[in-house]
């Protein structure tokens, strides 16, 4: 709080003081009070004024400077009232009490939304498990009864399964709760599961999958990683170049402090302008416009899940040549001991 600002704020008070001083002088002169007495009264009046204003200024300055300093340093600024002492002057007290009430009401509001979001997420989890039952049932029926159509049904059913998984993992990735387990996961098995899930689609476009060095284990949640790789693979199988046999290459590299998993395809690639934004929510870019149906959610969820698990993911690409994603898993000796 600056002195000058404070004085400006107190302008009315000074005006009134000046007017009352003027009136006083007027009356003192009218009653023919001696000049010395008048001067003494004026000096006392002035001293009183200065003392009162200085005390008031410093009292407020101490509180407000403290508040501003803490506001600057605080990253969750709505918690400010928890950091302050209740001031000893009236307007400050009123404001402080107001803060507390407003904050309480905000907390209630936020927790109401949080409850709604949690309920919704729980419902989604439950719903996804429910919807998987008829899908499983249909898949068995398709296998048991239709010979010609069976394969086509299987493909459509695995699409449904893919989309429901996307919903499930979106709900999971947006939630603050920790519902994953980090444990040693064999890359080989995870990749095999992912490949298996996408086999029908891969076969329809004649894609082949090459693997290298997948004998490694990484610290991650197996199911989440499966979903992440599933999204990357679905993209690779979607954005293929016509007339070129799609090849997906998954390789792992063991570095002293981390394991790198590379996921490379020879598809359409991503143009340079789009590349920095592919992990953004709802970003579809040029490929999303050229090719049918793109929600822009897949890679966003992937990035979110990677962040939650503590892996870093980067993309490199050249238009019409390749796209390569690299996921880096930290090594932690501590986990291995357990």
């Amino acid at each position, binding site marked *: 709080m600056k002195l000058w600002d404070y004085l400006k704020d107190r302008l009315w008070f000074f005006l009134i003081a000046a007017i009352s001083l003027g009136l006083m002088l007027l009356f003192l002169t009218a009653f023919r009070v001696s000049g010395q007495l008048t001067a003494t009264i004026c000096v006392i009046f002035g001293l009183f004024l200065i003392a009162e204003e200085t005390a008031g200024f410093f009292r407020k300055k101490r509180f407000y400077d403290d508040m501003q300093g803490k506001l600057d340093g605080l990253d969750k600024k709505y918690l400010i009232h928890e950091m302050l002492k209740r001031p000893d002057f009236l307007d400050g007290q009123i404001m402080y009490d107001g803060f507390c009430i407003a904050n309480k009401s905000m907390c209630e509001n936020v927790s109401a939304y949080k409850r709604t979001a949690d309920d919704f997420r729980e419902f989604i989890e439950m719903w996804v498990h429910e919807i998987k039952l008829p899908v499983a049932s249909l898949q068995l029926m398709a296998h048991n009864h239709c010979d010609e159509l069976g394969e086509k049904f*299987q493909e459509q059913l695995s699409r449904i399964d893919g989309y429901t998984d996307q919903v499930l993992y979106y709900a999971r990735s947006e939630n603050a709760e920790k*519902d994953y387990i980090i444990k040693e996961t064999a890359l080989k098995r995870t990749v095999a599961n992912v490949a298996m899930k996408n086999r029908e689609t891969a076969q329809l476009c004649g894609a082949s999958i090459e693997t290298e060095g997948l004998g490694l284990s990484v610290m991650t949640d197996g199911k989440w990683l499966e979903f992440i790789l599933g999204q990357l693979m679905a993209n690779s199988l979607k954005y293929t170049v016509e007339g070129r046999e799609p090849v997906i290459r998954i390789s792992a590299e063991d570095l002293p402090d981390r394991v790198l998993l590379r996921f490379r395809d020879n598809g359409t690639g991503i143009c340079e302008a789009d590349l920095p934004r592919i992990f953004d929510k709802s970003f579809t870019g040029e490929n999303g416009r050229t090719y049918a149906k793109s929600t822009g959610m897949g890679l966003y969820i992937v990035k979110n899940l990677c962040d939650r698990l503590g892996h870093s993911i980067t993309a490199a690409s050249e238009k019409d040549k390749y796209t390569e994603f690299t996921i880096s898993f930290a090594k932690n000796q501590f986990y291995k001991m357990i």
Partner: protein
Amino acid sequence: MSKIYIVEDDRSIREELAELLRNSGYEAECLTDFANSRAEVLGANADLILMDINIPNLNGEQLLKEIRKETDTPVIMVTSRTSETDEVLSMSYGADDYITKPYNPTILLLRISAVLKRSAAAVSVQTYNGLQVNDAKGSLSDGSREMTLTKNEMIIFRFMLDRKGSIVTRDELMTALWDNDEFVNDNALTVNISRLRSKLAELGCEDAIETRKKQGYILR
């Protein structure tokens, strides 16, 4: 014939699953009285149990724990729960495998036969038309000559041998190959089959693999 016991509360899935297993040459029996699940499962004396987690009364994980106190019958958990926690929990209670719904039926069958093979006394040498099949070496021999098969050829041959005399679709062969981390495409499968054919022919089994147009292959 191995007897497989199905613990599944969704009627439609249960029936289709039983049909799938019967079509594939297993004996299938289903749990219907979920109030006495423990006694029913133990009384069925099955060779393998397929178990869902979300079932009435005792849930699958608890039921598995109860069963494990009494018997070592192999159990495959089949569930729509997809979190790692459930899998870790099931495996720690003694499940032999964990498959999430929806699943590819061929994979389920592959896993079932893998688990059954593991639990049966390991018969590593089988015969086909007087040929000795050696899994460990990955080779076929007729006593005098020995022919080494590649990993892919062995997978294909084993799969067809298990289903000898009935039609095996290309799709099933693909699934078997991919399940063994061999992510080949359609052309590669054709090449592998023709190589396997000529290797069998060299050992004196001409026309062992018959092609059925639009259906698949039969090992005779």
